Every structure is written in structure tokens, then in C-alpha cells.
């Protein structure tokens, strides 16, 4: 038994040597520690700090290949053992959960009271902590926002093993700095989230999806503009787009039966003669345009494109102009869409696609991030793209994790 294994094993019940199945985007860790409580996480991090070990947090492992591979992973800190939904206060519309709980389980608990965490399950089976770390969102972000609009409190363990809380059990709260914002989307590089508190929304009585064809990018933009400026109060405005193929715009309406009925009819009128109304979501709703089950070199290059709403047509046009087939789907009404480049396209060609799309998105106030890609592609492209205020981000990292031991290298600018 090594020093590290002995040291971690003395503070955490489940510690074992890692195997190839534990790899984080190709990097096989030294040890796997599976703590059962915040206190155990703190002990593991204190022991790791004393030994100078690098630590990569893992939830349920559904997005571990996102971002960049870690430079080092002495310890894989697996939070899936902390999977309890701690408290659902239905009257207060809040839920408190451990970070390793699957988001589906949390939705199941709060769903019994006809409530929901207003974030779509874009990656099936993901944990609360992993969802926070990668800041995923789906169609309903248009009305519910993203994790930053839903997370009201959290417990974290710092790299030095100190346990800290921020926020609280109430939605309205301006006491102290809002640390939750910093943790969201940080890929586990600042601290390890062990518990989270979310605000909930009531589950709507009725839903309708109204879909219409978009002949070209200008048409798609016109339809989206019509809907967002109208009074139909869309819960989502999605676009589906294939290079060279046809496009579709789908609007989701949620609310009371009496209201949704009328708004669906009004939306249908806005979208034109061929619009259809359905009580069921269209195929591919709330899913990325890539196969989440594909692994290794078989996975597509997954892109996240953001832009102000007036940039939609240019982004769609740029995708359609690409020589390689790029499929796109996403929240046109929010300015966030996802695109997939097939796995077989060589790295240098993918790099060209990324560069061109990045130019268009940047011109429209947004960005292009390579969410995931085969190893060869990650080496050929600038995964995160240019980051304004990177120096300030590094200073924040230096304060929270001065030795850069938490998920080193996975995030922007080598963080």
C-alpha cells in the first residue's frame, strides 16, 4: 500500500487503486476515493493537500471528457456515494440535495409535489454536482434561466479541506459574496461542491409544441424574432438545422390549459401556414445534436455557440456553408445553440470549422467553445477560445487553490 493510499484510506472508508475504467478523458488516476459525507470529502482534501496530490472531482461520470484532460489526477474524488436528496420544502419551493444525487432523482422527488428544478436533462443520468460544474442547460433556459438563476445555496470543500457555505435557504438573499456563481461552470477547479440548494418552479398544467419549417437562415431568424417580440410568452424557442438540409423552429408554450390553448394558436399564426401544434415534444427535444453514448475517437466534436439574437441568421448561414456536415440544434430564442462535427472529420478540418464559427459568434457578442471532442481534435483546436479577463480568473484560482491541485488543466487558460 502506498503512502497516499494509506493516508487517504485512514480518513475515507472507500479508497482503492484506480484502473483504466476510471480514466478522466484518457488520464488514468492513481487512486479513487469515494467519500460518503462532506466531512469525509474535507478529510480527503486535507490529506491530499498534505501530500501535494492533485484531485479531480467526479459526479456520475457523464461529462468527464468535457473540457480538456487534466494535467494530473493523483486522486479521483467520486461523489456518487453522496446521492441523497436531503430536504424538499415544497411550501418554500426549495430542494436541498447532495452533489452526487442524479438530477433525475431530484426531479422525481420534487415532481411528487408538481414542482421542478427548471433545468432540462440534456445529459441523461448526470449528477447535480456535474451539472453545476459544467453548467448545462436546455430549451427552458429561455424562461427559467440556467443554474446561476436556480442555485440559491451551496456547501463546498476547498482545496485545503476547509468547509464553507454560501447563500442559504431563501431565494432573496444578498448577504455576502455570491460564491455559487463562481462555482457554476468552473469544472471543479475552485472547490468541491458537496451540497446544493435550488429554488423550484411549479410544473405547468399544460404544454404545447408548435413547429414550423424555416426555408433558410433569414427565414429562421424572422420567425424567432416574431415569437420573442410577441405576447405568446414562449418557454422555449428552439431551432434544428442541418448543413445543406432544411431547418425547423419549435416553440414551447407552458402554463394553464386555458391560456396555453390560445397562445399555441397565436404562435401557429405567427409561424405561418405549415405550423403544426402538438402535445408531445418533437424528436430530439432537449438533447444535444450529438450521441452522448459515443466514446473515445467515435465521439463527435461537440460545440457550444452563443450570440445575440440578431446574429442567428449569420450563425446558421455559417453552419450551412461548411463543407463538412455540421448538425445544429439549440435555443435560438436564448442565443445558445449546439453543433456537432462528425467524428471522422480530421482535426485540422475541425479546427477550420471552429475558427470560422468562432469568428461569426464573436462578431455577434458571443463565443464558441469545444465542449467535447476526440483527443486528436482537442490537440488541433483551441478548445476554450479567447477568454477576456483571464488574468483576473487566474488570480481567483490562485486564491482558492494556490497549488493548482484541483482538476488542473481542465478549464480555461490552463486553469
Amino acid at each position, binding site marked *: 500500500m502506498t*503512502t*497516499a493510499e494509506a493516508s487517504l484510506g485512514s480518513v475515507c472508508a472507500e479508497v482503492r487503486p484506480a484502473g483504466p475504467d476510471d480514466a478522466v478523458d484518457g488520464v488514468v488516476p492513481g*487512486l479513487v476515493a469515494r467519500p460518503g459525507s462532506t466531512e469525509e470529502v474535507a478529510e480527503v482534501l486535507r490529506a491530499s*493537500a498534505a*501530500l*501535494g496530490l492533485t484531485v479531480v472531482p467526479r459526479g456520475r461520470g457523464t461529462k468527464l471528457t468535457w473540457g480538456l484532460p487534466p494535467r494530473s489526477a*493523483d486522486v479521483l474524488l467520486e461523489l456518487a456515494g453522496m446521492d441523497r436528496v436531503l430536504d424538499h420544502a*415544497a*411550501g*418554500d419551493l426549495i430542494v436541498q440535495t447532495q452533489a452526487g444525487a442524479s438530477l433525475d432523482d431530484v426531479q422525481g422527488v420534487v415532481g411528487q409535489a*408538481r414542482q421542478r428544478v427548471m433545468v432540462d436533462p440534456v445529459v441523461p443520468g448526470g449528477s447535480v454536482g456535474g451539472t453545476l460544474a459544467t453548467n448545462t442547460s436546455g430549451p427552458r433556459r429561455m424562461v427559467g434561466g*440556467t443554474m*446561476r438563476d436556480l442555485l440559491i445555496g451551496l456547501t*463546498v470543500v476547498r482545496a*485545503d479541506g*476547509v468547509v*464553507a*457555505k*454560501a447563500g*442559504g*435557504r*431563501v431565494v*432573496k438573499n*444578498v*448577504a*455576502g*459574496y455570491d460564491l455559487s*456563481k*463562481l462555482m*457554476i*461552470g*468552473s469544472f471543479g477547479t*475552485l472547490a468541491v461542491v458537496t451540497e446544493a440548494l435550488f429554488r423550484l418552479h411549479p410544473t*405547468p398544467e399544460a404544454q404545447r409544441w408548435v413547429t414550423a419549417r424555416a426555408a433558410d437562415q433569414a427565414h429562421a431568424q424572422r420567425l424567432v*424574432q416574431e415569437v420573442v*417580440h410577441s*405576447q405568446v410568452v414562449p418557454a422555449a424557442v428552439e431551432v434544428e438545422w442541418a448543413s445543406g438540409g432544411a431547418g425547423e423552429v419549435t416553440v414551447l408554450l407552458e*402554463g*394553464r390549459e*386555458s*391560456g396555453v390553448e390560445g*397562445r399555441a394558436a397565436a404562435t401557429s399564426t405567427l409561424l405561418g401556414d405549415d405550423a403544426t401544434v402538438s402535445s408531445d415534444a418533437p424528436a430530439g427535444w432537449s438533447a444535444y445534436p450529438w450521441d452522448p453514448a459515443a466514446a473515445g475517437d467515435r465521439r463527435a466534436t461537440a460545440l457550444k455557440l*452563443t450570440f*445575440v*439574437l*440578431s446574429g442567428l441568421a449569420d450563425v446558421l448561414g455559417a453552419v450551412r456553408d461548411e463543407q463538412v456536415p455540421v448538425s445544429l440544434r439549440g435555443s435560438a430564442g436564448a*442565443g*445558445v445553440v449546439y453543433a456537432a462535427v462528425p467524428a471522422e472529420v480530421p482535426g485540422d478540418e475541425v479546427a477550420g470549422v471552429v475558427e470560422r464559427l468562432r469568428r461569426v459568434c464573436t462578431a455577434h*457578442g*458571443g463565443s464558441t467553445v469545444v465542449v467535447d471532442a476526440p483527443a486528436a481534435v482537442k490537440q488541433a483546436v483551441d478548445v*476554450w477560445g479567447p*477568454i*477576456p*479577463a483571464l488574468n*483576473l*480568473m487566474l488570480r*481567483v484560482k490562485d*486564491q*482558492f487553490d494556490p*497549488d493548482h491541485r484541483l482538476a488542473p488543466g481542465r478549464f480555461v487558460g490552463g486553469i
Partner: protein
Amino acid sequence: MSSTSAAATDANAGIAAVARRAAELLPAAGVITERSRLRTYECDGLAHYRVTPALVVIPEDAEQLAGIVAACAEHRVPYVARGSGTGLSGGALPHADGVLVVTSRMRAIREVRREDQRAVVEPGVINLDVTRAATPHGYYYAPDPSSQQVCSIGGNLAENSGGAHCLKYGFTTNHVLAADVVTPDGATVTLGGAAPDSPGYDLLGAVVGSEGTLGIATSVTVRLTRLPEEVRTILVGFESTDQAGAATSAIIAAGVVPAAIEMMDALAIEAAEAAVQCNYPAGAGAVLVIELDGAAADVEAEYAEVERLCQESGAFEQRLATDPAERALIWKGRKSAFAAVGRISPDYIVQDGVIPRTALPEVLRAIAELSSSSGVRVANVFHAGDGNLHPLVLFDDSLEGAGEAAEKVSGAILDLCIQHGGSITGEHGVGVDKAAYMPRMFTEEDLDTMQLVRCAFDPDGISNPGKVFPTPRLCGEVPGRHKGPHPLQEAGLAEVF
């Protein structure tokens, strides 16, 4: 020379250097040094804290502002940013040896982009003016603090301001997309972006609500919200706050999300009647002001449900306002409430604690007990929908011990909020007023962790020092810091794996 006077000399030299730099950068009208004029800025909306700043500067643009901050950084002179000075926690209270940076001359609305649902404004722009600029396009700026006719967007960003309608629409942090921020070293950074989800840490999320301790915004990109098709405001009279609280819970439990649910108790109603003759239901022990907005058919259905639930909770009178004039009349009583208590008491403390909504009846009863056992009157006016209490603790400062007794009741109310898992402040901020209460809500470790952010932005602690945190963290100390290999490993006594 004693060390105190040496420090004073240093402070004077620093201020003199910044004043010289300001005179180079700004027109003469933007640099205030005369004692009598400096005193104009001695307090913000929380007037019982007063400090005269050593220097006031009123820059006209981002470049001038950044130049002033850079000079402060160079000479380690503390500075405090101030928008319209309406804050209720002393967040813009000046520093006696520091510079007050006033943004009131940076008032341009640079862009209103309907197609992108965005506006770009300077920090001194008045909150309501953003809505006025967006309204012709069918849009408005959703966060609406009670002071929206005078408060500034820069101040809103610093305080993460809320308002009556944040129950449905959220706070400033949910509506600010990007900001150019001058950090305490004088550099300008763009945080966030016009498009959502900028890659990297959400530093903007940390800066919003940091009460001017992490930097000063010089340009703010905000989200514009579509004006609703239909708005209905309902005034409901109840015999007791228990009934009004029960109605609030029933409405939320039914899945209705009103734009606002406000409550006033008998004493607050009495004050409002005396001040603005709002003609609220006679004899009410509590009133609710409920506002529903959205698509017309949905509002119609929600209204029927709310009316029924209020009835079932014991409402004895319900009045519906549908046109803007009637709505304004209902809101007049609510919005005048703070000022109105001046009619029934010479002095008062406004609290801003938050509790989980379901604890409302219990906490209101506990406040009533505190009031009767101490003899200190407490009027309650608050955002019932999100549990944000605004107890107004009334006292007469001319009576000996009255102020202390009121402070004691006020502190006990905050303790009640904390006991119920709530917060010491929902929208007014911590500032200088509630910094001492922070350790009641947060552990030393919690506060230390928050201050890591402060150390990243402002290691010298010159940006609004003394606010938010009861004790500053020394940024040089990094606890648990460990560099290089483990000593045992180095000595060849152990291997890591």
C-alpha cells in the same frame, strides 16, 4: 511623531496626490475639495451613519474613472463608489481618508437593441430611465427597487437590487449580462458578454452584489423584458396577518407565480393612510397587494384562482385594479409605507431580513411578542411572496434608551430570520450597517472563503473597505499553503504511490 499622526500624514499625502491627478484628468467641476461641499456627500440613504470624505470626484467617462482608481491604487488610498446614494445599508458611506467616486455624470443610455433584447447603459443612469427608453419598443427593465425613480444602475449592480417584482422576475444579477469593470488596480476588464454563458469563471456573478468592494462598473449591458399583455393588481383585506400569510402560502402552493405579493400590517396601514390617504380596506389587520401579469388568458385564469384562495383564507374585501390609474392608487399606499411611518414615529429602523415563506405566520407572531414584551412598536411592510420582511422598528430618539431598545428588537428580529434558515438581508445589502451581523449567519470559514474573492480582486483592500465583512482578511496569508513535494517524500522516506 506618533504613529497615528504619521499615518495621518501618509493619508494626507495620498489624498493630495490623487487630488492632483484628478485635477489633471477631470474638469474643475468634477473635483471637490472644500470641506463644506464635501459634507454634501457624508451619507447615503442610511442617514444615521455620516463620514465626510477627504475628496470627491465626479468623472464624466470610464477613462477618467479608471485614472482616478489607478491613482488610488498607486498611493494606496481607499475609495468608495457612489451612484445616487439611495442605498439603505451604508454601502456608499464615505471613508474619512478616502476618495468618493460619484458616477452621477455618467448617465448616457448608449444603446437600446430591441432585436437583441438588450440595452447598454452607463452606471449613473437612473433605473426607471432604462424602462422609459425601452417602453417604446415594448420592453422594460424588470428589477424595480422602490427607489427606482432615483437610484442608479451602477448602484443596483453593486447591491444586486431587488424590488417588489423580483418574486417572478428575479434580481439585478438575473438581468445584467455584461459589465466593464474598473478593478481596484485601475485596470478595466469586460466581464460577461452580450450573449449568454461567457466561458471562464462567472466573475460578473461575483461582482454583482459585492457592494462596490470588487470594482466599479463603467458600462452595463442589461436584459430587457417584454412588457406583459395584461396586468392585474388586487388589494385584499384580511382580519389578521395570519390569514394574509395563509393566503400567500395557498397561492404559491397552487402553482401561481404572481409578479408580486406584498403585505402590510395594521400599523403600516395606519401610517400609509395618514400619509397618502390610500383608502385601504377599513379595519384590516393586514392587506395583501397581489399583482398578476402575463398573457391575458393566463392572467384571467390565475386571477380567478387567487380570488378564490383569498376568500378561503378569510379575506373580507377584494378590489381589482385593471387600469394604470387604479393600479397606481393601490401601489401608492405600499410604496409610501417607509416614508409614511415618519407620520407615526419620529425615528425608525428598517430591517431587511428574509425567512422561508412558510415560516411567515410563526415569525410575525414572534415579532409581535418581541414588540409587546419590549414596548417597542414594529410596523410590518414586506415582500410576502419571497419572505423578505421589512419590519419598521419605531422609536423616539429624544427619549433616553429608546434607540438602544429599538436596536435590540431589530437585532432580535434578524436572529429570528437566521434561526429559520433565512438571511439578514434580502435586498438592502450588508454595507456598514449589518457587517457585525455577518458572523451570526456565516461561520469564520464561510467569511474567509468569500474574502478569497476579495483578495483576488483587491489585495490591498482599498475598494470600499470596512463594508460587508466584519474583519478584513490579510491577503498575504494563504492557510494550508503547501509548495513542492512532501517533506517525507523529499527525504526518500516515502513514495506517493
